[in-house]
């Protein structure tokens, strides 16, 4: 898979799930996560090879655009320049923790990304998908300590984190795999 193929496939997948992501986000935040991701990916899919992750950052806007952009930068480098994916996702994970002041267990994208990056150190992309999926499902029982969701009743317990869902979709796309949300 090349960078442009990946962004095209991811745009198509997020387009399918955008409404569901918005609904998940509405329970925890301002209800625009799917729309934000789709806006960024639509622009990214049209951008030049090598400039797609940054096009995503620009078009999606806001802090979440930056944080997801940091993941997409690493994937783009991996696909276009053969950079090591595990190291890249680990770097993105550390940066997102630092910038967003979140850690594992805070009910955020990190709960899916951190185990995925860890799994990639010794495993395959599919192992990373499995680890991220398990992490995503654990966010259902967590209560949020950062972001808007911390002000929601019970910190949003009972709802999976939409950012963690998006991480799984990104990794599934990378693995060339389709699965139910």
């Amino acid at each position, binding site marked *: 898979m090349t960078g442009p193929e990946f962004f095209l496939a991811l745009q198509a997948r997020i387009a399918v799930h955008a409404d569901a992501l918005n609904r998940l986000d509405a329970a925890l935040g301002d209800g625009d996560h799917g729309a934000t991701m789709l806006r960024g990916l639509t622009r990214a899919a049209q951008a030049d090879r090598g400039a797609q992750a940054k096009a995503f950052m620009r078009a999606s*806007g*806001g802090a979440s655009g930056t944080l997801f952009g*940091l993941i997409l930068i690493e994937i783009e480098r991996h696909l276009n320049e053969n950079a090591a994916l595990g190291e890249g996702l680990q770097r993105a994970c550390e940066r997102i923790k630092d910038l967003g002041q979140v850690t594992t267990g805070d009910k955020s994208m990190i709960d899916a990304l951190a185990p995925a990056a860890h799994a990639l150190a010794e495993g395959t992309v599919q192992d990373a998908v499995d680890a991220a999926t398990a992490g995503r499902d654990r966010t259902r029982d967590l209560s949020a300590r950062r972001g808007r969701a911390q002000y929601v009743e019970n910190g949003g317990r009972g709802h999976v984190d939409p950012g963690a869902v998006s991480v799984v979709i990104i990794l599934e796309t990378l693995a060339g795999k389709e699965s139910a949300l």
Partner: protein
Amino acid sequence: MKKLMNAAESIVDDMIDGYVSAFEQVARGHQDPRIVVRAKGRKDPDRKVTLLIGNGSGHEPIAMGFVGAGLLDANVVGDVFAAPSADLILDGIREVSGKAGCILLISQHSGDMINGRAAVMLAAEERLRVRALPMYDDISSAPRDRMQDRRGAAGTMFVYKILGAAAEAGMPLDDLMTLGRAVRARTVTLAAALSPGISPLTGQPMFDLPDDEIYLGMGVHGEPGIGRTGVGPVRDLVTLIVDKLLGDYPIASGGQAAVIVNGMGGTTLMELLTVWNETRNALAARGIAAVAPMIGSFVTTQEMGGFSISLLEPAGDMLRLWTAPSDTPFFPSIRHAEKEKSQ
């Protein structure tokens, strides 16, 4: 609500078009039309440390109005009330940085911090010599023992101006960072909101406030602060604010404070000069000389009514740098008003 605009989608670019065509001190950057750069007498970035900031628009003249000699080298302009994206800020850093280094100033708000610090991470990967300097001064947003959690407000202009003058004079990167942190540690701001601004995006007021109430400590986007107070003589309100500022940052009798009285967009100069006068009196009553005031509407939120008072207890060269000449379209000339007037 009436607004002079063509469309919400074009308002930022229309404004920048007007701005760069009007003033010789500024131009559009090469990397992106949302970057405003210093055009006149640019110094070699391998010798002079460059300063830039990214911020949401809608608060003019800050920050693009302060691009020019002795102040900012560039401003990255975001959408209305929205931080510019990390990659756009990165373009701004690429535009101005050289071997002498570059400081990205960040007025502390969550989106600006995340995008600004991400831009610095990406710039470091490109081996650009760049540092981030978060700025915060609003005492209502966090107590003094959590100063690093405070929001950036009008007092950040002390950092802009003092670092701008010092960089122009050739101060190296590390010394500028130290100076910037020192100015930040000695600056406090508190705001009073009278009436909301109208968002150009929604056409709606950004918060609600009854006609007979003033909100102390409200952030520039309507973020919550200390609480409400009634409307009375402005002397009482200013004295309350000065006491809260000095309660947070005590200045000894016999000391001095540089002052910014900032209007939020919908408050008249007549009112702001009155606020300054009462600030000066309140400080004098506590044995503190108010010096080198900056008075006017500089950090605005559309037609929001209200003002803030910022105090800096100057040390070392700070006062000289604060009053040093600069040449930008909207930063005023500040005089050292220490002359004891007989009155």
